[in-house]
């Protein structure tokens, strides 16, 4: 049986697209892109992270167009990104340059610089706040004025917003292994199809652009026994990373162009690993799992740090240590694209399967008679 080309459905498709627009508009009220930008911060963060494109404005527009569908918004951004030229590569961003607005440690109460809670839902009651149904503009402005008034009365703080890394503190104590900066140029999964075993740079790039739910699920699976990594979070920090690009012919960092900053969440997880000491006896040492993603998305960054550490130890048979299992299944566009392609017409292949079943039955019935 050969393939049979068919056509048709054009009018139905056009009507379907009209129907989609009708669904978006029929409620009578529309949320403006500016309103999404100012009130849907964490949703925007998640879309940018999974799209691997930092642009709050475009992410907000994509969210509006996609009627709030994460997978559709990420797809739109990825598609748009593919139409744009890559003009520059940044200079290396050194994470300690982050202007921190939140940093906590689950490993130590007292960390150099202190624990800064910043803005977080962690300590809120998870009860629906019905007062938001009645929230008025005047009330919002009043609250803002009062809050900003209280802040203006504070004494200015010193410093530039950077904080020492908890992990460096421990390295200086000789408790963690130290590494010299490795300036090997990273691989880029958006330019070249990666091969197994993947390089460390490819693994980190795939994980940081992975779907939040998928990365979280696989990290969780590791904790539940489908992996051998159960870390203590050394540090979670959220803040802005300054981005610079080198000037053509520039000689040093002072010649480079500052282009802005991106908000990111960064995590170092401390993972106890059994090892043999100098006397041949079993002892524990700590290794570090690393996680980072655009925006404030702490669950994803922590889960990434677990998976990073899992993939550093492929000797385990557990699924979360299998890089093919992890890396090929966490990308939003690949996974949602493949799953949703199943609803596209498969008339011929299914007809072929039906024929096979019919022939098998016919043969069996004939044989039995």
């Amino acid at each position, binding site marked *: 049986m050969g393939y049979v080309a068919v056509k048709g459905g054009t009018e139905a498709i056009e009507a379907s697209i009209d129907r989609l627009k009708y669904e978006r508009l029929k409620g009578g009220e529309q949320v403006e892109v500016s309103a999404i930008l100012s009130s849907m911060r964490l949703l925007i963060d998640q879309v940018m992270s999974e799209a691997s494109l930092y*642009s709050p404005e475009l992410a907000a527009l994509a969210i509006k167009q996609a009627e709030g569908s994460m997978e559709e918004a990420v797809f739109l951004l990825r598609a748009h990104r593919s139409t744009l030229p890559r003009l520059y590569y940044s200079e290396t961003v050194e994470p300690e340059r982050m202007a921190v607005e939140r940093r906590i440690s689950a490993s130590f109460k007292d960390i150099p610089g202190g624990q800064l809670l910043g803005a977080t839902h962690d300590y809120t009651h998870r009860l629906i706040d019905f007062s938001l149904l009645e929230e008025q503009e005047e009330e919002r402005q009043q609250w803002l004025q009062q809050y900003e008034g209280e802040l203006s009365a*504070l004494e200015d703080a010193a410093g530039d917003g950077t904080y020492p*890394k908890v992990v460096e503190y421990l390295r200086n104590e000789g408790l963690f292994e130290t590494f010299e900066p490795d300036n090997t140029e*990273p691989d880029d999964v958006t330019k070249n199809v990666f091969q197994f075993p993947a390089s460390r740079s490819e693994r980190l790039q795939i994980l940081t652009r992975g779907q939040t739910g998928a990365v979280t699920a696989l990290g969780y699976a590791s904790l539940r026994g489908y992996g051998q990594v159960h870390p203590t979070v050394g540090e979670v920090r959220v803040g802005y990373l300054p*981005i610079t690009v080198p000037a053509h012919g520039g000689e040093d960092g002072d010649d480079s162009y500052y282009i802005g900053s991106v908000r990111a969440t960064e995590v170092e997880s401390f993972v106890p690993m059994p090892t043999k000491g100098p006397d041949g006896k079993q002892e524990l040492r700590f290794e570090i799992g690393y996680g980072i993603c655009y925006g404030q998305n702490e669950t994803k960054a922590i889960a990434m740090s677990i998976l990073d550490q899992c993939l550093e130890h492929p000797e385990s048979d557990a699924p979360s240590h299998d890089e093919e299992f992890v890396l090929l299944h966490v990308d939003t566009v690949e996974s949602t694209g493949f799953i949703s392609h199943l609803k596209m017409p498969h008339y011929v292949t299914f007809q072929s399967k039906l024929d096979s079943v019919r022939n098998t039955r016919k043969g069996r019935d004939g044989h039995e008679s």
Partner: protein
Amino acid sequence: MKRRRMTEILIEGNPELADRLASEIRHHYPVRELAAPRQGLTMIKMRETAKQSLFYLGEVLVTEAKVEIGDHIGVGIVAGVREKLAGDLAVIDAACRAGLSETAGWTAMLEAEEIRLADRKRRELAALEKTKVQFDTMEE
């Protein structure tokens, strides 16, 4: 003033400053537009802290513009969709590369804006400091 410092002041500060400096140049010199402000991508190269290796964090949307003053090409690059600012930055960059006399008078204005930015930063830090945890040890 070095480019790294100047571009940070102009991008993080009030965009009216970039407009003012670029307008001054446009008023006195012919500025040829080589590339109108356009959107593109910059890939972010990042160092991770576990093994100190490099990887790509992702791309950031940027607006880029290029101009020429005399034989000197200026480039304006800024994250986001900011066409006017990218154009102004390109003019300012070309003026600095050409060493135009007007640029000598810019330092005071840039430093004043830098001080204003530092004040804003200190206020933001003070606000964040309020969320710093003061642990009290519980006694039995």
